[in-house]
C-alpha cells in the first residue's frame, strides 16, 4: 500500500527506472532459482549411481565403513569380475553370453513376428485386422508380472525351465505388442501407392514385404530392435523364475543371487552391476537422437 502510494508521487523517469530494476531483479531471481533446481536435480539423479561406482571401487574393508569415498580406489572388484575370481562369479562370462543370446533371439523374433503381422494388418489390410491390433494393445497394457505364475507353471509342465527359450518366449510375447504399435504408426507415413504399383508390376506379397516394406521401415526397425534388446536385457522376474541353474542364468539373475549370500561382497556385486549396465547405457545414448517422442514409450516396462 504505502510503496504504491509513494511511487505515485515519484517523477515518471524514476518510476520506469525502478520498474526496470524490478524486472532485472526478477530475471536474476529466476536464474538463481533455476540454478538451485539444477543442483538439486543433479544430486538427486547422481546419488544412487555415485553409490554404485563408489562401492565398486572400494576394497573389501571399505565396504563396511562410514566413508564417503574409498580410502584407496582399487579396480580389484573389476579384476575379480573379469577373471571370474569369486565363487559367485565363476560362470560370469557364460551368463553374460546367455544374456546376449536371449537379447539377440528376442530382438530377431520380435522384429520378424511383429513386422509380418503389421504388414498384413496395415498394408494388406486383412479383414478384422483391427481386432489383432486391439488385442496387441490390450496385451501391452497387461502388467507382465501378473502373468508370471501361470506362465511359469506352463513352462514347467513343458519341461522348459532352465531353458533360455522359455525366457525368450516370454520376452517376445511382451515385446511384440509394442513393436506392432510402433510399426503401424510409422507405417502410416509410407504411401500405399508403392505397394499398389509393385502389385501391378506382378510382385507377390512376400516380395513387397521384403523389398519395399522392410527397407522403408528401417528407422522403426532400429527403434523396435533397441526396445526389444533392452527389454530382454533388463528384465528380471521371468528370468529369475525360469532360470535357477547356474549355467543357464542370465546376468541379472546372477546379480540378484548375490543378495542371498550371507557374506555379501558388495564391491564385487557393484562391479558386476556396472559391467552389466554398460551395454544398455551405451545403446541408449547411441540411439537417443533417433528416438523421437513416439518411440520412447517402450521403456516403460521395467
Amino acid at each position, binding site marked *: 500500500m504505502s510503496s504504491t502510494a509513494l511511487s505515485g508521487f515519484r517523477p515518471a523517469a524514476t518510476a520506469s527506472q525502478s520498474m526496470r530494476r524490478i524486472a532485472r531483479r526478477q530475471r536474476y531471481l529466476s536464474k538463481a532459482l533455476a540454478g538451485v533446481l539444477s543442483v538439486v*536435480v543433479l544430486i538427486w539423479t547422481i546419488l544412487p549411481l555415485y553409490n554404485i561406482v563408489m562401492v565398486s571401487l572400494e576394497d573389501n574393508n571399505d565396504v563396511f565403513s562410514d566413508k564417503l569415498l574409498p580410502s584407496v580406489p582399487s579396480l580389484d572388484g573389476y579384476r575379480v569380475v573379469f577373471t571370474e575370481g569369486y565363487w559367485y562369479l565363476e560362470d560370469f562370462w557364460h551368463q553374460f553370453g546367455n544374456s546376449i543370446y536371449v537379447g539377440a533371439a528376442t530382438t530377431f523374433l520380435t522384429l520378424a*513376428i511383429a513386422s509380418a503381422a503389421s504388414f498384413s494388418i496395415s498394408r494388406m489390410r486383412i479383414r478384422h485386422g483391427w481386432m489383432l491390433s486391439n488385442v496387441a*494393445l*490390450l496385451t501391452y497394457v497387461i502388467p507382465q508380472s501378473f502373468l508370471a505364475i501361470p506362465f511359469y507353471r506352463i513352462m514347467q509342465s513343458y519341461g522348459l525351465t532352465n531353458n533360455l527359450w522359455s525366457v525368450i518366449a516370454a520376452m517376445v510375447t511382451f515385446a511384440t505388442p509394442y513393436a506392432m504399435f510402433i510399426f503401424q504408426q510409422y507405417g502410416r507415413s509410407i504411401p500405399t501407392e508403392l505397394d499398389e504399383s509393385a502389385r501391378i508390376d506382378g510382385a507377390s506379397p512376400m516380395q513387397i514385404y521384403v523389398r519395399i516394406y522392410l527397407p522403408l521401415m528401417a528407422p522403426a526397425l532400429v527403434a523396435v530392435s533397441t526396445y526389444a534388446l533392452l527389454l530382454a536385457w533388463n528384465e528380471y522376474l521371468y528370468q529369475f523364475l525360469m532360470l535357477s541353474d547356474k549355467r543357464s542364468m542370465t546376468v541379472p539373475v546372477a546379480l540378484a543371487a548375490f*543378495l542371498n549370500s550371507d557374506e555379501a561382497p558388495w564391491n564385487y556385486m557393484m562391479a558386476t552391476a556396472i559391467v552389466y549396465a554398460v551395454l544398455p547405457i551405451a545403446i541408449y545414448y547411441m540411439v537417443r537422437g533417433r528416438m523421437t517422442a513416439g518411440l520412447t514409450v517402450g521403456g516403460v516396462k521395467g
Partner: protein
Amino acid sequence: MPDGASAIGTVQVLPRRRFVSVEAQRRHFWRGHLQGSEYAWALAFCVPYIAVFMIFVAYPVGFGIWMGSKPTLYAALFSDPIYLETVINTALFLGIAINVKLFLALLLSGFFMRKGWWSKALLMVFVLPWAVPSLPTYISIHWMLNGEWGLINNLGWHLFGITGPDWLTDRWTALGSVMVSHVWKWLPFWTVILLAGRMAIPSEIYEAAKVDGATGLRMFVHVSFPLLANLYLICTLLSTIFSLGDFNSVYFVSGGGPADSTHVLATLGIRYAFDLAQPRLGVAAVISALPLLIPLVTILMRKFRTSQVQL
C-alpha cells in the same frame, strides 16, 4: 451431369450384386478386398503373431483364471493380515507415488524447456536413471539405505551430524523408500514424454498468450496445462497400470520387509507362489487387482482410440 453419372453407376452395380452367391458373400466377409492367393499370404503373415498370442497370452490368462477360480482361495486371502496390509500398501503406492511422480515430471518438463546448453546437458544426465537397468540401481539404493554403512546415513552424519534411522526396518520409512526409489527410476521417462508433449505445442500459442499479458503461473494454468491435460491423463493411467505390476522396486529396495509389511500385490503374488508354494493363492492375489485394472484398461483403450495422442 454428375447426377446422371452416378445414376448410371448404381444401375450398373445393382443387378450385378443380385447374382453374388452366398458362398462369395461369405468369402467377401472373411477376405475383404483381398483376392486369391493374396488372402493366404495375408493370413500367413498374421499366423506367427496369432500363435504367440494364443500360446503365451491367451493360454496363461485362461490357465490363471482357472487356477484362481475357487472361492475358498479368496476367503483364505482376505483372512490373511499380510494381504490386507498389502492392499493398503498398493493403494498408497499408486495414490502417492504415481501422482507425485507425474506432477514432478510435469513441472520438470517445463524446466527442461529452457533454452541453452546447460539445460540440454542436464537433461542428458537426468535421463540416466531410465537408461540404467533397474536392478543395479535398486540394489544400490537398498545398500544406500543401510542404517549402519549406507551412503544416506553416512552423508547425514558427515554433513549435518545427524544419525539417520534404519530406513528399512520400519514399515513406513521402508514403504516411503520404495516410493522414492520408484519415482527416482521413472521420473526421467515421464518427464521426457511430457517434454515431447510440450514441444508439440505450437510456439504461436505461447506468443499470443504473451501478447495478451500472460506470464508464469497464469501461462501454465491457462495455456500449457489445458493443452497437456489429455496427455497427462493418459500418462497417469498408463503409469498406474504399469506400476501395479512393478515388481522390482519393492522386491529389491525393501524386499517386502520388515516382516512382509511392505509388499504390493505384484510381489505378494510371487511370494505366495514361490516362497510359500501356494501358486493358486498367488494367482488369487493377482486376480484381486482386476477390479481396479479392468476399468483402468477400459478407459485407457477408449482414450487411445478417441484421441490422436501419439505415444
